[in-house]
């Protein structure tokens, strides 16, 4: 099987290399950081993986509140978590 193409994105200004077809939520998990802080400040990560729980919301290329489990990484994408 051919090796999937690799691409690079920035998660909180830190470069993360992923295979193409990787979701932004998985890239954030790879970076080892929470996707968001809850209303009382708790760290959170993805829960449902299918766009219903909203735990994986982060800012992608300047647009806030993106469900990162439903977005694929692209080259040079900028992801920001609180």
């Amino acid at each position, binding site marked *: 099987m051919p090796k999937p193409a690799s691409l690079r994105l920035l998660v909180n200004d830190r470069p993360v290399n992923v295979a193409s077809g990787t979701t932004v939520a998985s890239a954030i*998990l790879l970076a080892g950081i929470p996707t968001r802080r809850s209303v009382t400040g*708790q760290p959170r*990560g993805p829960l449902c993986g299918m766009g219903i729980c*909203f735990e994986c919301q982060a800012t992608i290329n300047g647009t806030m509140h993106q469900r990162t489990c*439903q977005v694929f990484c692209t080259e040079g994408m900028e992801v920001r978590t609180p």
Partner: protein
Amino acid sequence: MTERFDILVVGAGPAGIAAAVTAVASRKKVGLVDDNPVAGGQIWRAGAAQPVAALAWFERLAASSVARLQGWRVFDSPSQGVLRAEGNDGCRDLVYNQLVMATGARERFLPFPGWTLPNVMGAGGLDAMVRGGLPIAGKRVVVAGTGPLLLAVAAHLAKKGAKIVAICEQAPLHRFVPFCASLLGEPAKTKQGIEYALSTFGSKIHTGCWPVAANGDEMLQSVTLRRREKQWEVPCDYLACGFHLVPNLELPALMKCRIDNGFVAVDDLRQTSIAGIFCAGEPTGIGGVEMALLEGEIAGLAAAGKVVEAKRMARRRKRGLGFVRALSTVTELDPRLKQLATDKTLVCRCEDVSYGRLREHACWREAKLHTRCGMGPCQGRVCGPATEFLFGWKMDSTWSTIRPPLYPVLVSSLGDPDKLEFKSDSLALAGAQDQKEIQ
């Protein structure tokens, strides 16, 4: 922008794909709208080897003239015969004569101390992350909850190199006897069961067992498990925990379709209480992929006016009902799971509402008004089914009073963007969190 269809199908999982492909064969103009970036739903999610049946349906879909709207989320029905969807580049009105809803199911999550820690996910949730590129080789995973999904997930993760340190099924062992017997009538399921058993061979499978706590400071470090009187701690990197499935009823409820005992009521041809609106797959009863495909075909035929063919197929469907009944029996929740949450355990993860604050209320509506439970971005999709189990709160009133938008959307999607005061793309109407940002 407006698009017109004879038949519009919502949801591109097995049921939706089957409905669309079947309907389009009758020379109807068919649209298939789905919120994920690629078709397949949850069970046929990309990123893993697909079963032969899935490949065949994907091929039929690709070869068909079905108009695909992938990455579009239906959030409103502004007038009869119209659904409104939001995508990456704006908003579209989808006009239809007949509607097939194949909105699928989500996992049921139950709160226990530590369940909000990062790396505690749904069973399907972790599987989705791995299919979405998360490397899992060498990671220690505890799989817990209930239902056949647990074994499927454990088998897939094991294949990807994960170390499955424990599989915990809440149901007691004796309940699996009738369940396994129901599989024997279906060769495809029997084969799959044997495959799962082989690939999880060597993993510890505990029945009548569940997690009582997830431990760690900022991230999961271990899980405390309990079986009968025995309690023990297992270090792990991920906890994949889901308590079977609950149907996605938001759209059927918005369309005012009758909901009976937590599922969309349909006739033999999958028509709901509203003429011209059909429903197929998990929202009408959790039955698995083969059942969803059959129901999708029936709905597609019926929506296209092929009543004789639809009736013939409906008779075939009846043969699979033994498995559906066995599935609901085996996944029945142990009442002791109600005692996992302590007063401090959060139940609503969006608004951080604890069990202690909720248990003084009599019903879901009262709890919402006093605590904001279920009023965050997920709109009760996670905590609703949990409170239904924990407190016996009925969701009927929720379904009858549901209002658009079904999902948080951009302000510009809610009306004529030129007439709105807010035009920033970053503004979303959701819960308190967003309102704070707007202020």
